[in-house]
């Protein structure tokens, strides 16, 4: 069965620190990859997505993610975090050719940024 692993449950950083959140998935075929973010008290929203092409994807608010097919990874990065980045981050995978509706999420990583 397909699965998504997020390595860190809770990450605490100071403002201006660099961020990297790990995400690995288990599926050997073609995948579409997503990072969603949930700010405190708000709904889940898309941060960035990868379908094909350049494996380095840029999203909103200075976030980027790199797809490394050989490592089955899609790590999220940001060079310098801000207090407003405090949120929970979810990696998600949709296996191409699988159920169109089945977006598989990781358990999430809670990011706390200290001002």
């Amino acid at each position: 069965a397909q699965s998504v692993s997020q390595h860190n449950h809770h990450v605490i950083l100071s403002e201006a620190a660099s961020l990297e959140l790990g995400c690995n998935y288990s599926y050997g075929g073609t995948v579409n990859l997503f990072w969603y973010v949930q700010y405190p008290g708000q709904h889940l929203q898309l941060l960035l997505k990868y379908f094909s092409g350049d494996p380095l994807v840029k999203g909103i608010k200075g976030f980027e993610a790199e797809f490394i097919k050989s490592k089955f990874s899609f790590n999220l990065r940001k060079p310098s975090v801000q207090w407003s980045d405090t949120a929970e981050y979810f990696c998600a995978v949709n296996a191409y050719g699988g159920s169109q509706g089945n977006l598989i999420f990781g358990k999430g990583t809670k990011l706390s940024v200290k001002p």
Partner: protein
Amino acid sequence: GAGVSQSPRYKVAKRGQDVALRCDPISGHVSLFWYQQALGQGPEFLTYFQNEAQLDKSGLPSDRFFAERPEGSVSTLKIQRTQQEDSAVYLCASSLDRGANTGELFFGEGSRLTVL
């Protein structure tokens, strides 16, 4: 409306009661999804509609769970004879495209169900 709307936002039910959770997707969105999010977990897929057709219900945990979208717009998730393990946040999402693999899902704020 401006976004996906879910109601009620909070529901407390006694074990054995039936509950109904409503989702108003963004107008014109073809696809509608229901997810269940337990505490400390990521959202887990329950079911998917394309217009009024329920194309995938493989994630529904038991036959106590039932979802419908009769006119291809509003959807209702019904849980019969609720159990404590049903306590979770139920998320609805919609998408302009067909399916989750072609575009962005827009999520509602969820309905938090607590079963006592």
